[in-house]
């Protein structure tokens, strides 16, 4: 078991190195031989390679003699990230990021091309930020007793600022609900993974552990995906990450009325901020969600600041 874990970790490490230009790979390899604690790799043209490890930034190989990133290195990195096929990631690039094998998110910045007042693409990419996806098995252990009732999941909304581990938490929730345990009876879970972050799908197959009863729609818009899943796979629970548009929220409402339990996440600092969101706020006021989980930027991913019921009463607080 330990050996297979190690092999898996080495595989993920090589996966990350594989998307970097060869010269940058060498610099990272000299610094670390594993992904443990590694959160981000930041590459900017004309700037040194920076990594964030255990919440601390570091310049590579050293602050005195940094490795300055050239335009060619960044282009090579983008070639590897996009499998030499930028056309295949046009939609993702339009949003400013794309997801690579293993569910790692790559944010990009550069010159934005506009067409009819809309972003068409990003050209001359000058910054790349690789955010390492960490699967933390068991990080939802503490949460599960609060969001289940009679061995069934409640409609749950996870509210969290960016980088607080909501994707990691949802991923573990999906796995536990799908497989079942002492709090919840294993049931079929439908996942709409618009940015391939939850499953980290490669060729349609999830690379992360999402449980044995999970069906995943990869790279599918959330609103359409939820309706597709209800019609085609009859899930008992639907999970989506980072809802935002009014279409997403209407689709959630539709799914709730179809008898599916919903687990969703949204960007926000706390309950009050979530209530101020136009359509979502209305749903909260109508008490459509049975549980609200607020996350904070703590020492470990998915650190819970508070759990509330549909009336906003505190069930648990840090």
């Amino acid at each position: 078991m330990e050996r297979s874990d190690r092999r898996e970790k080495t595989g993920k490490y090589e996966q990350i190195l594989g998307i970097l230009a060869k010269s940058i790979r060498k610099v990272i390899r000299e610094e670390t031989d594993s992904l443990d604690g590694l959160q981000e790799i930041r590459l900017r043209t004309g700037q040194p390679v920076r990594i964030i490890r255990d919440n601390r930034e570091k310049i590579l190989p050293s602050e005195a003699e940094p490795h300055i990133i050239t335009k060619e290195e960044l282009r090579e990195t983008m070639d590897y990230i996009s499998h030499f096929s930028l056309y295949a990631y046009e939609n993702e690039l339009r949003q400013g990021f794309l997801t690579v094998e293993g569910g790692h998110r790559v944010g990009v910045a550069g010159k934005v091309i506009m067409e009819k007042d809309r972003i068409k693409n990003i050209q001359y990419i000058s910054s790349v930020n690789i955010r390492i996806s960490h699967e933390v098995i068991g990080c939802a252990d503490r949460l599960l007793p609060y969001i289940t009732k009679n061995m069934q999941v409640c409609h749950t909304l996870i509210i969290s600022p960016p980088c607080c581990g909501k994707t990691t938490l949802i991923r573990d929730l999906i796995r536990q609900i799908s497989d079942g345990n002492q709090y919840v009876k294993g049931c079929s879970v439908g996942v709409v993974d618009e940015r391939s972050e939850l499953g980290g799908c490669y060729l349609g197959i999830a690379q992360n552990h999402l449980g044995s009863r999970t069906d995943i729609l990869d790279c599918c818009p959330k609103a359409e995906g939820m309706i597709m899943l209800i019609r085609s796979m009859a899930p008992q629970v639907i999970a989506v990450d980072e809802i935002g548009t009014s279409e997403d929220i209407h689709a959630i409402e539709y799914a709730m009325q179809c008898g599916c339990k919903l687990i969703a996440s949204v960007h926000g600092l706390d309950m009050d901020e979530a209530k101020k969101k136009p359509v979502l706020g209305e749903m909260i006021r109508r008490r459509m969600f049975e549980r609200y989980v607020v996350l904070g930027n703590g020492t470990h991913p998915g650190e819970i600041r508070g759990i509330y019921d549909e009336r906003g009463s505190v069930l648990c607080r840090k």
Partner: protein
Amino acid sequence: MQKVIGAILILTATSGAGYVYCRELKTYLERMLYLRYVFSLIKGEIAYTHAPLPDVFREVAGRIKKPYRTWLLAVSDALETREESGFARVWNRCADRYLKPLGMKPEHSILFKEPGTFLGSLERTTLDHTLQMYLNRLDLEIEKIREGIAAKTRIGRCLGVMSGIFLIVILI
């Protein structure tokens, strides 16, 4: 008697050579047509699935025969391993290695390396247009070969027989 047998053998050999030459011309045209088919599959797969090139090549490779299959699989593997920078370099290397046995003329070898300069680096719509233009160019080349092939076949056959007769006359 020996002279008659010798004359028949010479005539058969030279006519055979003419026939082989005609067959080769036809095979060359068939190869060009097949490569055009491969590129049209690539274009269709990109337009339909919008998948990255390694996936496109792997998918298309499953539908075509050797050595074209080996060639596309090799390109796909090389792109997946990410050990070579620049798509054009990978494409040219694999074309040189796997399409060499086809014995293409230098101008056609260059033509088949051309997609290396634009595949993958263009956005979707432009790539589709560029691939269509490339297919049109292939069609033109194929048309040129097809036009030449009829005359060349006739000449090849005639030369085969005529050179045989010429040899027979000289030797007798």
